[in-house]
């Protein structure tokens, strides 16, 4: 099977066949095994083993080792498919979702308003802290899907950011 793996702005093709594994066409002697009874994995490269944590996250895999956490989107190389990269990087789609359950304290934008990457959209209170939810990119507010005082679940749609039309 030939997989396309997207990590942020890097795309890697991994071909897994009975004859062996190829990364971007280069043959690599490797395998993956699980440490029994744990969620830990060992990536085997030749004769050496490298510990990793792999966690299924929706359609993606989170790959972790000391100091790193990467989101890998794995597909069969068909059309479409975006995302991947460092957790928290702006993914595809214009919907900004609640990163955690909380209470919407204030909505700071209106429909039609132009926003820049990193500018505040609304303030979500969780764990007694006010967390500013920021726009992942430049654009225009298409829809505001929540109002102040509303409790939201993790993953709830908050604001839609569309392309700015000049």
């Amino acid at each position, binding site marked *: 099977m030939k997989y396309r*793996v997207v*990590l942020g702005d890097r795309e890697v093709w991994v071909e897994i066949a009975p004859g062996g594994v190829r990364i971007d066409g280069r043959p690599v002697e490797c395998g993956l095994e699980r440490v029994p009874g744990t969620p*830990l994995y060992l990536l085997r490269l030749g004769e050496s083993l490298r510990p990793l944590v792999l*966690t299924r*996250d929706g359609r993606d895999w989170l790959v972790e080792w000391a100091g790193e956490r990467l989101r890998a989107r794995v597909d069969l190389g068909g059309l479409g498919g975006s995302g991947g990269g460092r957790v928290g990087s702006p993914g595809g789609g214009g919907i900004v979702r609640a990163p*955690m359950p909380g209470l919407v304290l204030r909505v700071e934008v209106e429909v039609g308003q132009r926003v820049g990457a990193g500018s505040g959209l609304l303030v979500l209170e969780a764990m007694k802290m006010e967390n500013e939810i920021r726009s992942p990119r430049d654009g225009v507010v298409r829809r505001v899907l929540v109002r102040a005082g509303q409790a939201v679940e993790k993953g709830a749609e908050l604001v839609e950011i569309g392309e700015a039309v000049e």
Partner: protein
Amino acid sequence: MKRVLVANRGEIAVRIIRACREEGLQAVAVYSDADRHSLHVRMADEAVRLGPAPAAESYLHIERIIEAARRSGADAVHPGYGFLAERAEFAEAVEDAGLIFIGPPAAAIRAMGEKTEARRRMVAAGVPVVPGSTAVVAAAGEALEEARRIGFPILLKAAAGGGGKGMRRVNSEGELPAAFRQASSEAAKAFGDGSLYVEKLIEGPRHVEIQVFADRYGNTVHLGERECSIQRRHQKLIEESPSPAVNSELRARMGEAAVRAAQAVGYVNAGTVEFLLDREGRFYFLEMNTRIQVEHPVTELVYGVDLVREQLRVARGDRLSIPQGLSPRGHAIECRITAEDPFQGFLPATGLIAFLSVPSGPGVRWDGGFEAGSEIGLFYDSLLAKLVVWGENRSAAIRRMARALEELVVVGVPTSQPFHLRVMRDPGFASGQYDIEYMETTGMELLRRRPADSELDLAAVAAALAEEAERVKPQPGAAGQGDRRESVWLRAARLEGVQWFG
């Protein structure tokens, strides 16, 4: 004093229970419904339910805690930090019930808790303070007047509390009304009092605090400083002792000022006097924390003392066993391991800790309150554990901390570990030349760094192999062999995992 009720949860409850054990005292834990299966509950001699998960109905509920103490036959109460630790009315309620409060007298808590009152007292005691208002400012307009007098930038701060809640930096007049509103509403929520005061913002300072300890017989000592400049939104992330910016001469002067501060309010037991230290070596009183601090272990490691056991002994009426004039030996660093995702702006995370492998070996201390199987919710703060190391000097301590962080594996909940590891590998941190701006500048830059392409390739192969394994043997979250002996909670964790991140 024979039986101590520990009015807290998480790592600090565990820390206090350990101290009780070592002092030959019995420990009574309290818990909310969310913490029924927690470590502190199982470690105590007895555990008493307080109520439902929300803190207001459990760990902040004074009557229920007093009732739990009465029912369990406790004769003393240790408040830990946070929750009720700095509420004078709690200390009073404990004493009114005929129990020993393991902490300062209520009057000292009150004097230091009201920040503008504390500033006035410090001025009177000859302790240097940051220029600013000596009274609460009633409205944004009044804050503006004060700001014009001392000059921008300023800080708006909550009169009733600390910890960064209800605090805002204000750079110019235009920012003031919105900042005032936000800070006031945050303060009202956190402390039940939205009052604010104004302080001159000292640019590029360090946050250096002095540990003090006093007994009932008029002895007050200090135990040097803790450097706490690595903070995010005024929440400390990394602490060390000694501070790279403090020599023995400055330590003696700051220590002496801290002792004067404590004596000015009739302080007894452990406390911490926080100072801002500017680039010229001038220091200013910020506030006094009238409780044991989260970061107390770094002081313990370099001074060779046990502050929590000393708290128990002093509360019992013993004289201080710590003499003045101890010198720090070697260097200690603490990293706060929180359930927060550093790659998503340190957003609090929830979930089940599916797997936990804790660092150990020479010079490593883990003060934790959670284990594999612990559920991390949103009801309380996000501190999971404190990883503390000692080394013979600062660079040895940094290398040891990096080594310990590399050993730490937490699966199920994102933690601050990757951030800490990057700081330990940062030459800027190693140089010791940093201040409270570190997080906003270097810290954010460190988090944006991505691994080399060769590392990304390995991650890609691992993910593709995991995907392939799942296709061959379709099970949610499973990849590879070894699933047969998996326990029920591990399976639950994986299933949960799909939902948390999804």
